């Protein structure tokens, strides 16, 4: 009897995790739906203000506006060039500079 309980406990444990995962999936779908109005608002801001970049790395000009960066900056001379700012170790050079 005691050993039966262990298998049941394990199934219960996996089932609980499965339920949590389903809950998270539902949360993801709900949140995507709930964020729609804000996504639309952000899209509107991008359109009206003619923005080009995400405000992710504010360390340097070329990491702030990654798509507008020119070839003059350190790490963009080559993908392997040494970079001054920590962001450069995370980011890849912009697509149009890699051509």
């Amino acid at each position, binding site marked *: 009897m005691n050993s039966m309980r262990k298998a049941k406990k394990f199934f219960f444990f996996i089932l609980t995790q499965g339920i949590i995962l389903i809950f998270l999936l539902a949360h993801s779908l709900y949140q995507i739906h709930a964020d729609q109005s804000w996504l639309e608002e952000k899209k509107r801001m991008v359109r009206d203000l003619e923005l080009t970049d*995400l405000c992710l790395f504010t360390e340097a000009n070329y990491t702030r506006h990654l798509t507008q960066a020119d070839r003059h900056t350190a790490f963009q001379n080559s993908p392997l060039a040494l970079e001054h700012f920590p962001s450069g170790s995370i980011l890849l050079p912009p697509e149009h500079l890699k051509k």
Partner: protein
Amino acid sequence: MEGWERQKNILDFSLSSLLRRKGKNLALVFVYTLLVFTLASVLFFTHAIKREASLILQDSPELIVQKSIAGRQEQIPLRYLEPIQKIRGVQSGRGRLWGYYYDPIIGANYTLMVPEKQTLESGKISIGQGISKTRLVFPGDTMEFRSHDGMLLQLQIQQVFPSESELIASDLILLAEDDFRRLFGGSREYATDLTLRVRNQRELPTIALKIAEMFPDTRIILREEILRTYESIFNWRGGMMVFILVGALLAFIIFAWDKASGLSLEERREIGILKAVGWETSDVLLLKFWEGTIISLSSFLMGIIWAYAHVFFTSAALLAPALKGWAVLYPEFKLTPFIDFSQVATLFFLTVVPYTVATIIPSWRAATIDPDSVMRT
């Protein structure tokens, strides 16, 4: 039904067997969960940010024309606009005014921009949430800027952008054209760059080519390139990302190798005894399969759950220090939980399946040896 009972009995035995080496197996589950957690956090974060970028930057300018002198971007003469607008397919165009301002008080760079549609009175500004929080300034307060000629320019805050917009406007300051010119100087005949809207998307490359022929000193950035940049921004080949992935992968290989390279003496003896009391090779393999599944499935599920909570409930608090770098003004944004299920499935097949297989192979070798010789060793 009988088969199911057999599975349950073997599962019971597996759990008891794992619990006999509780310390070792709990450590194993902890490391395994941590591994899945790290990988899943990176995957969830990068996918969500890429997806959000592709959605909100869809409406960024279709074509940007910058003037380039000696490899650096310079101000572009507004007279370039007239011939460009005459190119067939160009719907509209305007000179965009934007730039950076370094604030020595907090040591941060702001992005200053003159909006086209929003008409701000001279002397008024709208600022991003990041600036408001870092400088502790709110609507009605004034901010001082030192202009190009050393004069102090006082601008009153009219509006602070909502915190939901931090991902695009945390460091943004909108101001009137007059204030921009007073702050940075320069002629009214020039703009920072030109933005164009076109009628037909398919004509974009042709229009870009025509502009490049007309003005060889310009650099043209297409919206497609903007979107592609953000698509590849956290590419797996990118700097730290590759180290996280390689580190985690190596840890997993050591992990699986340790399992696959052989069983401990105690485990071999256990298999020997089981065979001596009448267990068949298939039973032993089933036992080991369940042992591998219990550890890998529990760790995988826990890792995924914690990773989701970490990225979407705590705004990737553990990844943030790496992303912040030296930034003074870092946006606090909550990502929309876009999940790529194929990534989760890949992670499952890269972690759970090899681990389970790695547990079975040495057990199969041990299970096929004579029980007597195993017990005597």
